[in-house]
């Protein structure tokens, strides 16, 4: 019977929606500051006139496209187009700088398709079962998960661990600015309504990543990206070679992305960071990560596109949005009068399955469309003279930041953070730990306060932090992740000592 839903998804109108959605998504996601959430929000009113399944296909397609498009600016301008693409900058930009930007874009396309398909297939086959994962994670587990995320800093800032931790502390501090969700206190606003809304994550991203690149672009005479002589076409064969060799990395990252997306409150940025550090940990070429290692891009782009399908799992089954764009899509469904829940997969199967097949089609469309649009984006970035590129990107950063919350103060905060970020960069502080602190701070804080309140109600605070297998597991991983660099250092030390011994 499910074939009829596949056919329903294949109507010319639905195909057109998927096509238009993916194209619009790629372009919006590719522009710094215009995120997937915004792309979906803008498109929601358009879908009200459509059948629920068609509307969902369009929103799913634009979401998929935007998450993928975020890789372009990450690779070519070192600025994550969407928060999900933060980790793509780590290896994408170094690749582009050395002349492999086209290869990086093709790698991102291949892995995005693999990740997107994995997430959508999980949604198609295992949704009701996987949705229960969302209910296994409570306040305590989110607190530990955020702490685990913070331990990634030591992995991400190897060689400059102390600077990494200083950066993360700055990020955590920035995350407390504004009205606290839990507790309602107004913090660090210095009596001004300017800081009431806090530091918005995407504007911080734009400031910390993009502004330093812009300053360097203007301050140095070198071309923005080197153009490799052999560069011709999509370099698809080369990219396929890398992808096949790293198929386990891609699949593992896609599974991580799917599962992280099921947890409400996490999302693409955390999924790609976790899969990046996993790829790095298990790679034989650990030291090449951060220098332009294709495996880094394969991991992050596979993971963040898997969050699209994964995030729909709790959204459609439980009515709990998995990622921020899902929250908007859920609202759109309610306006349409479609109630989420298990019956969406039984009584309203025509809506849910038609949509899921539509999402699969949109993901397949990513491959040809991504390659073509990506090629165009790459060509324009390398051929546009710096005198035009710099002001264009600068203009986009301001517009993009303003558009997030229609707030001028966010632009000011973005610029201040950008200049600060440039100085910090020169002093060896990377932007990623700061952003990580900013993203994880509120998750950790809210989880902690909720757990303490619950513990007080039960009359014992400490035991609640170790209340079940999930929290034990996460705590164990935290301990291992924290001690691992130390352990590796000791082992390396012993090895060199042994080697020195045998040489004598």
């Amino acid at each position, binding site marked *: 019977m499910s074939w009829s839903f596949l056919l329903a998804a294949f109507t010319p109108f639905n195909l057109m929606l998927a096509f238009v959605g993916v194209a619009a998504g790629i372009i919006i996601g590719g522009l710094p500051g215009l995120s997937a959430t915004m792309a979906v929000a803008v498109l929601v009113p358009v879908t009200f006139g459509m059948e629920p399944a068609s509307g969902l296909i369009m929103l799913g397609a634009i979401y998929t496209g935007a998450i993928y498009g975020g890789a372009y600016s990450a690779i070519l301008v070192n600025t994550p187009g969407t928060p999900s693409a933060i980790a793509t900058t780590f290896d994408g930009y170094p690749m582009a700088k050395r002349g492999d930007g086209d290869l990086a874009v093709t790698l991102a396309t291949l892995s995005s398709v693999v990740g997107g398909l994995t997430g959508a297939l999980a949604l198609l086959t295992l949704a009701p079962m996987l949705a229960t994962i969302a209910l296994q994670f*409570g306040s305590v587990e989110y607190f530990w998960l955020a702490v685990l995320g913070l331990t990634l800093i030591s992995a991400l800032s190897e060689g400059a661990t102390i600077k990494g931790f200083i950066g993360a502390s700055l990020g955590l501090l920035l995350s407390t600015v504004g*009205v606290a969700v839990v*507790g309602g206190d*107004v913090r660090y606003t210095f009596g001004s309504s300017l800081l*009431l809304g806090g530091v918005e994550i995407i504007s911080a991203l734009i400031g910390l990543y993009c502004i330093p690149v812009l300053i360097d672009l203007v301050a140095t005479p070198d071309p923005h990206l080197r153009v490799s002589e052999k560069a011709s076409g999509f370099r698809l064969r080369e990219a396929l070679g890398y992808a096949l060799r790293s198929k386990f990395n891609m699949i593992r990252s896609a599974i991580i992305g799917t599962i992280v997306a099921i947890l409400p409150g996490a999302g693409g940025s955390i999924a790609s960071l976790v899969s990046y550090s996993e790829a790095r940990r298990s790679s034989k070429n650990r030291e090449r990560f951060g220098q332009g290692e294709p495996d880094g891009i394969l991991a992050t782009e596979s993971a963040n596109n898997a969050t699209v399908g994964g995030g729909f799992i709790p959204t459609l089954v439980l009515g709990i949005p998995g990622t921020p764009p899902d*929250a908007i899509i*859920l609202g759109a469904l309610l306006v349409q009068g479609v109630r989420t829940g298990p019956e969406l997969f039984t009584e309203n199967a025509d809506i849910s399955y038609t949509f899921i097949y539509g999402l699969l089609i949109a993901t397949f469309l990513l491959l040809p469309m991504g390659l073509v649009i990506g090629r165009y984006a790459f060509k324009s970035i390398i051929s546009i003279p710096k005198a035009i590129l710099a002001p264009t990107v600068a203009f986009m950063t301001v517009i993009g930041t303003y558009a997030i919350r229609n707030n001028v103060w966010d632009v000011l905060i973005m610029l201040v953070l950008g200049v600060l970020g440039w100085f910090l960069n020169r002093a060896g502080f990377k932007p990623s730990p700061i952003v990580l602190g900013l993203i994880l701070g509120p998750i950790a804080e809210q989880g902690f306060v909720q757990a303490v309140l619950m513990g007080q109600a039960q009359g014992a605070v400490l035991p609640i932090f170790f209340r079940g297998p999930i929290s034990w597991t996460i705590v164990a991983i935290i301990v291992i992740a924290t001690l691992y660099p130390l352990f590796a250092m000791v082992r390396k030390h012993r090895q060199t000592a042994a080697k020195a011994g045998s040489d004598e």
Partner: protein
Amino acid sequence: MKSPFMTVLAGAVTSLAMGTAVAQSDFPSKDLSYIIPFGPGGESDISARLQQEYFTDITGQEAVIEYKPGGGGAVAWSQFNDMPADGHTIIGTNLPHIILQPLAKDVGFETDDLNNFYFFHYSPDAILVPADSPYQTLEDLVEAAEEAPGSITFSGSGTYSANHVAQTRFDELAGITTTYIPYKGTGAAVTALKSGEVSAEWGYSTVAANHQDDTRMLAIASSERHPLFPDVPTFQELGYDLEGGAYRGMAVPEGTPEEAKQRLSEIFGEINQDPEFVERMQELGFFLVDVPADEVDDFLAERRAEYEEVARAFDLID
């Protein structure tokens, strides 16, 4: 885009169709900018989205929704009076937010700065438990709270929010002590309920409407039973004088002409009477009220008295 002639014609046709001769049929003369001080996808957004098409039916103009989130709404409200005051810019306002926020701290606006012209519905406060909860009735829950004060935990959205106000007021009315645990948004609060992390949730009938399969509403704080939940008693029926919830209205910037404000009040009043709109709102669990421009002051004064009492319980004011 639309010619002035068409606009006038559309306005005239609408007035005729409604059987009312409206003098200001040339207002609104262009699209309305409808600011929502929260992000998309929430109840403020959803209810505004439902108004949208009926606004177009009546006026021939579009109501364009813009999101300006931040600071629990405070960012948008504190900047609103700088917006153009020709009647074509309105903002969604929420209770208790616009009363409690300025009471508690300096958020850059005072309640009276907001020129409300209509309150159109509220999401009635409600107590929800998981479907498999041992508490079948409100009385069961109250008894459990009496036996072990503080041990019953409620999830809810945010601190000093409508949920928090309801929890504080109910504890006082019932003479019990419970623990309120704030979450970021209704979605997180209902997740905590479903996962069994908390005993119950202070939510709304709208939450119960969206999660009918695995939650049970014990009581609703509307003035009468909700059409969608004919079997769920109101708090008043059970002997607790609790009525209210998260009210939603709309305001114009300071200096907006009085006629424009009146006309907006009429338009949104008319939307509130549309049977299809009423049905769609009720399906989602909302409870409609009609507080037009002339009655807004009295309505706000009443709410204010209630919230000040709660603010005292919160130790926000003396």
